[in-house]
């Protein structure tokens, strides 16, 4: 009995100390906020910067932001996301003290940002997606960047941000105002390609596919002859997420000039939803034929990307529609398991004799906005100028900010505000090609040299660089993108705005309806004609309204 009293009192005392140290926390938290007005008062007289894109504030200013942290990012001893080469650079070169209000692993960034936005407490600079941008504008939380951008953006910044063909700016321009800066990314990297095991092709005596019928023939040969030596082989990899860039049906549909999930101009010049066009029905019918012939795994409806990887890396599947990054994942694992696995990417096949065009991505995925009332909105533009100067500036890449002797440190990941030259990856391929022709990488960009070096190491027998070879090498993934670019075989999504009001309300229903209908058709659980019922339902359940909204958006641009 005595013991339990002792435990009870102990527990209670622990609780009391817990509460009291909590009180202390409150006190300490109170102190910095008390001194905050002083620092800001000291900063305000200096807020008269020259309009030099990379000019330095005489008295350093303090700007807050929020960061996402990649799971592989590491730091040198004593460094952190608050103290590293980039943040020191901002301070020393620009006079901007960048503070991270919060940091979160990249996979959880969107969720955390949603909470921040909903609770009305965002830092000065935020990186958001289009839906979040829309919310910020609706709740009047961010400022118009048009003027600040014009005044402060460097030539390089202006050039980089508009070199994606304007898709980034289209997305962030609301009523003629630039409400955010697009973190431009490649458009062409979103294209589809067919990855095929060249060693299997040779075994079954076929050549690269030109038309969808060729794809079918190859799949049939793979299933019948089982060149991988496994008991069960399938012709084409497919996962439950049928619109995934990897193991999806998109690439095959593009061959029929059907662009599911995208908005493309119809014959009447209006934007129409790709998934509901009659050509989509032909694509689904072809997939159903493939399923009936046993070329598609009947369980694909429950496969996630990991399961698709499993089939591909274990030699059960030798062909899939994918993207350029498959060279890094999961194909190297296939090569590790089977040194004969020679994966080669090809342009997507067409249903007829004309070459097929692939849909590209919408480019920028992130957009930088500035909180309304922030004292120095130009700091965002300057940070972006700074980042691009270090990456693509006239003096070449500033290696202090990108390279380190310890290769596991990815210094580039510390950069808070950045954009990518949309043609960066394709230029790597072109540079590498040039280097191979000249047998030297003299005078080429840093990225080219890096990849050229890796590819040569692979050619010299170092298998760890297989992925680089398959990516930027002579017949690597980027060569397919280069082909698309040269031949103008790219289709752009016609709708680049944030989800419209009806989309927000209805799209989850409509998407489910679409996915279920299409999956059933492929699985031969529903006749191909159920596509027509789907189109009717889609229109009735909000599709017509969405189409109108999308065309209104396009008209307003």
């Amino acid at each position, binding site marked *: 009995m005595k013991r339990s009293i002792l435990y009870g009192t102990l527990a209670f005392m622990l609780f009391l100390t817990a509460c009291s140290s909590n009180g202390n926390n409150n006190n300490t938290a109170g102190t910095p906020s008390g001194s905050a007005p002083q620092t800001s008062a000291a900063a305000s007289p200096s807020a008269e910067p020259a309009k030099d894109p990379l000019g330095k504030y005489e008295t350093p200013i303090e700007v807050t932001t929020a960061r996402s942290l990649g799971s592989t990012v590491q730091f040198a001893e004593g460094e952190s996301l608050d103290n590293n080469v980039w943040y020191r650079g901002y301070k020393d070169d620009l006079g901007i003290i960048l503070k991270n209000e919060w940091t979160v692993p*990249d996979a*959880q960034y969107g969720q955390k940002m949603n*909470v921040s936005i909903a609770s009305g407490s965002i830092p000065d600079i935020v990186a958001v997606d289009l839906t979040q941008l829309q919310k910020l504008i609706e709740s009047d939380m961010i400022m118009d960047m048009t003027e600040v951008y014009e005044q402060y953006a460097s030539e390089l910044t202006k050039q980089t941000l508009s070199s994606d063909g304007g898709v980034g700016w289209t997305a962030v321009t609301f009523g003629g105002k630039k409400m955010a800066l697009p973190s431009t*990314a490649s458009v062409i990297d979103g294209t589809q390609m067919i990855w095929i095991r060249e060693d299997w092709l040779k075994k079954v005596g076929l050549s690269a596919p030109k038309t969808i019928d060729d794809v079918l023939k190859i799949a049939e040969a793979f299933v019948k002859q089982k060149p991988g030596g496994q008991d069960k082989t399938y012709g084409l990899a497919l996962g439950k997420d049928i619109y995934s860039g990897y193991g999806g049906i998109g690439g095959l549909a593009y061959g029929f000039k059907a662009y599911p999930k995208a908005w493309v101009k119809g014959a009447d010049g209006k934007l129409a939803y790709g998934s509901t066009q009659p050509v989509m029905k032909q694509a689904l019918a072809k997939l159903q034929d493939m399923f009936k012939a046993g070329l598609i795994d009947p369980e694909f409806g429950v496969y996630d*990307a990991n*399961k698709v990887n499993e089939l591909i890396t274990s030699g059960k599947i030798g062909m899939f529609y994918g993207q350029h990054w498959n060279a890094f994942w999961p194909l190297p694992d296939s090569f590790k398991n089977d040194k004969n696995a020679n994966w080669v990417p090809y342009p997507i096949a067409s249903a007829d004799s004309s070459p097929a065009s692939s849909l590209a991505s919408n480019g920028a995925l992130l957009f930088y906005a500035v909180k309304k009332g922030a004292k120095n909105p130009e700091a965002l533009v300057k940070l972006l100028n700074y980042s691009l100067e270090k990456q693509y500036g006239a003096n070449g890449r500033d290696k202090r900010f990108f390279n380190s002797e310890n290769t596991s440190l990815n210094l580039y990941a510390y950069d808070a505000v950045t954009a990518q030259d949309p043609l960066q990856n394709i230029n790597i391929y072109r540079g590498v090609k040039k280097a191979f022709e000249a047998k030297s990488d003299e005078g080429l960009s840093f990225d080219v040299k890096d990849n050229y070096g890796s590819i040569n190491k692979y050619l010299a027998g170092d298998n760890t660089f297989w992925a680089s070879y398959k990516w930027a090498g002579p017949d690597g993934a980027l060569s397919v993108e280069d082909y698309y670019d040269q031949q103008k075989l790219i289709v752009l999504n016609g709708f680049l705005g944030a989800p419209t009001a009806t989309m927000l309300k209805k799209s989850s229903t409509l998407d489910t309806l679409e996915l279920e209908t299409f999956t059933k058709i492929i699985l031969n659980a529903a006749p191909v004609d159920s596509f027509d019922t789907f189109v009717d339902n889609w229109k009735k359940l909000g599709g017509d309204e969405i189409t109108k909204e999308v065309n209104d958006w396009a008209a307003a641009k």
Partner: protein
Amino acid sequence: MIYKNVYGRRVFDWANYVFLGGAALLCLLPLIHVLAVSFSSSSAATAGFVKLWPVGFTLASYEYALMKPQFIASFLVSLERVVLGAVINMTLTILIAYPLSKEGRQFRWRSLYAWFFVVTILFTGGLIPGFMVVKQLNLLDTVWALVLPGAVPVFNVILLLNFMRSQPKELYEAAFVDGAGHWSVLWRIAVPLAKPALATLLLFICVGHWNSWFDGLIYMNKPEHYPLQTYLQSVVINRDPSMMTTSEELKTLSQISDQTTKAAQIFLAALPILLLYPFLQKHFIQGITLGSVKE
């Protein structure tokens, strides 16, 4: 004793064993699979060659997980939160359940107080108001944000309250006659009698604290302050590789999507609770049998 020899009874017993054994196996197999993957080589795991026995045995993924500063930091945060949370939750549960287990004539506003607590089960402020309260109290980014918002587990209070009510009133009355006050009755009689219930609640609370991840995500501002499960969620969910654009990023892809390190971290994170279970289970099985003999 006699009925055991009946043939039908034996068949029934065996059917029972087979059924329960099958159910146990269903729970166990996924765990063994994760364990096998964690000990396997990465390319074998990706290709799905690993079933219940490691292929290409290696400890590399454990080395990776245990060398990762973030894993260790999060582990410690989780331990801290379980200990603090268990102490706070248990204390408050006991202190609230005891008075509420009394009858209306002993405790005048009993039902009012009871409703005061029960209402929080039916209605919550929601995510954003909760976040704003924690923010305004300056608790963001401290361990208190993880333990104070759920300091009173009302459901547990109700369980304990009912358990205390089921105990014979005469015990308490005898104690009062002997001159004990409410404090002594609580700590000397009510709590010791409720040990089986308390062990169950402790297990609920520990598992709950150990497994919750969403509060860590919204209340913590730095990954190194994350509890283990929040960190684990960020490791385990699949990222869309289309989001990765530069060649530097692409080169990290295979590392991010590595099944074996994920499995190792999942297993390490599940281990403490797996170890806790047998110790507490003993208590409540004992409690149940004791009760049944007395009835």
